[in-house]
């Protein structure tokens, strides 16, 4: 498959946004807000950046993506479906009994996902382990990981940030989905993370700050990360929780509530109208 250009990425992200909301409506629960904030990043990774083959999900030279904020998994399922790992319509079984589309990623039931995550703070360590063994095996694949901003409050994140910096893992690239909200409110109020870039710099990371909904900025940042040697890169992606659906963007209740039929229709007509 040809890599998608910026226009292609934008229309793919629109398709994925619709599917995310459809599967959540069908499931009756789940996390739209953090799925919509991350979808442009995940779309760009799978349709433009990563070396992969959907026919061979365990190909040993593939680039890896670890969704550490596991609750954003509808975004990953939609992307994997459209990318050809399975029929996108299968994701409508999200959160159903015996479904591979668990409420949080499960690598055993769905081998297209790289790690089982959902208990926050753990995915970056797994990504670091994959990056370390790539170096040991002299493999040139890259490892991508996405964490939430609320998740960044977890101690294990900082263990791994310290460790990956000291191991100079330049094959590791981390996205921080900085959507500024967590379940109990604004990240700033619950447990402020600021200043974020300075913390990563202090732990020997290369830091890039972008708009996480601008696919050109995402592509440029990924290129800069690839060209950065001797240290891991973190891309701090300024995002909007619920991006693309006006009533979700302004209300944090959409962290963990799925839309009903009426809300779904309204959301889809907005998304089809194009992103603001």
């Amino acid at each position: 498959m040809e890599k998608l250009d910026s226009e292609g990425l934008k229309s793919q992200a629109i398709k994925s946004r619709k599917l995310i909301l459809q599967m959540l409506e069908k499931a009756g629960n789940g996390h739209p807000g953090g799925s919509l904030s991350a979808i442009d990043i995940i779309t760009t990774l799978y349709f433009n950046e990563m070396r992969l083959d959907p026919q061979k999900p365990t190909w040993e030279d593939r680039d890896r993506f670890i969704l550490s904020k596991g609750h954003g998994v509808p975004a990953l399922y939609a992307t994997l479906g459209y990318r050809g790992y399975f029929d996108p319509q299968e994701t409508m079984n999200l959160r159903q009994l015996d479904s591979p589309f668990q409420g949080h990623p499960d690598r055993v039931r769905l081998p297209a996902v790289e790690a089982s995550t959902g208990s926050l703070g753990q995915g970056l360590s797994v990504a670091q382990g994959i990056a370390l063994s790539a170096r040991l095996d002299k493999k040139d694949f890259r490892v991508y990981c996405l964490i939430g901003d609320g998740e960044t409050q977890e101690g294990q994140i900082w263990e791994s940030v310290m460790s990956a910096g000291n191991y100079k893992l330049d094959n590791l690239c981390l996205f921080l989905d900085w959507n500024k909200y967590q379940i109990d409110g604004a990240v700033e109020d619950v447990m402020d993370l600021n200043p974020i870039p300075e913390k990563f710099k202090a732990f020997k990371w290369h830091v890039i700050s972008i708009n996480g909904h601008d696919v050109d900025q995402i592509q440029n940042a990924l290129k800069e990360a690839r060209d950065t040697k001797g240290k891991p890169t973190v891309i701090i992606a300024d995002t909007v929780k619920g991006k693309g659906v006006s009533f979700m963007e302004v209300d944090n209740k959409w962290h963990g509530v799925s839309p009903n039929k009426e809300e779904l229709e309204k959301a889809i007509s907005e998304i089809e109208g194009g992103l603001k």
Partner: protein
Amino acid sequence: MKATRASFGEGLAELGREFENVVVLDADLSKSTQSAKFAKEFPERFFQMGIQEANMIGVAAGMSFSGKIPFLCSFGAFLTGRFDTIRVSVGYAEANVRLVGTHAGVGIGEDGTTQMALEDFACMRSIPGMAVLSPADDRETKAMLRYLMDHKGPAYIRLTRQAVPEVNKEGYRFELGKGVELKAGTKAVVFATGNQTGLSLEAANALESEGLDVAVVNIHSIKPFDSELVQKWANKVPFVFTAEDHNVVGGLGGVVAESMAESGASARLIRIGVNDVFGESGTPQSLYEKHGLDAKGIKARIKQVLS
């Protein structure tokens, strides 16, 4: 006499020579866990993770996803403390990780409670798919390590700080989930694990000279567990003892209790171990005397019940 952590250190280096996919991670305790031997011989495959057990566990899971067989080492108490990372990143993910927890039980002595693994069996065996192993001597530790090269899925191995005698004979073969009958007997049976196996054998031999024949079975696999063997003995002798340097809650005593209750056998169970209390500082010997975990204490308890 050799500590099983020392046997582990030697066995691990042997595996390193034979298998290229063995990698080792340690969290600033490589001298204590004895992974240092491997580190010296294979520096490129040894990963010093600093005092970050949770990250070490996740990193090992990631390495296993790329075909490595990671042995990650720390004190058992510190690994147990990162239970959720073990549960999700390793257990739920079915990662081929070997968690090596040394410094089992009150037998470590002076360092006291915080360094003593006393709940590790209980925690680890509650994770689906996790093999929970506890070798009794040098021979068994090394055989177990070799077996773990073929084992699919995660495993926890519990090792002693203190030296233990050889209880298994030459030509010993490790079989996952199978108890090892070390001594026959008709009056009672002791199911023992780790360093308690040697001590239970010593106690049973002393009882033998007093005319009481008590059987001893070594349980090196807390999970998968040899229920069949326990049920066989529970139908054969009136008293079943367990001996472990672990909390009797959820440990070997707990496993045997579950198994016996389901067997319908009428034998009585007596659990020898740490009776749901924390440890404390003291010499290993004084702690074993206090908890009745030395050969003398085990012997006295058996005698008391049998008389």
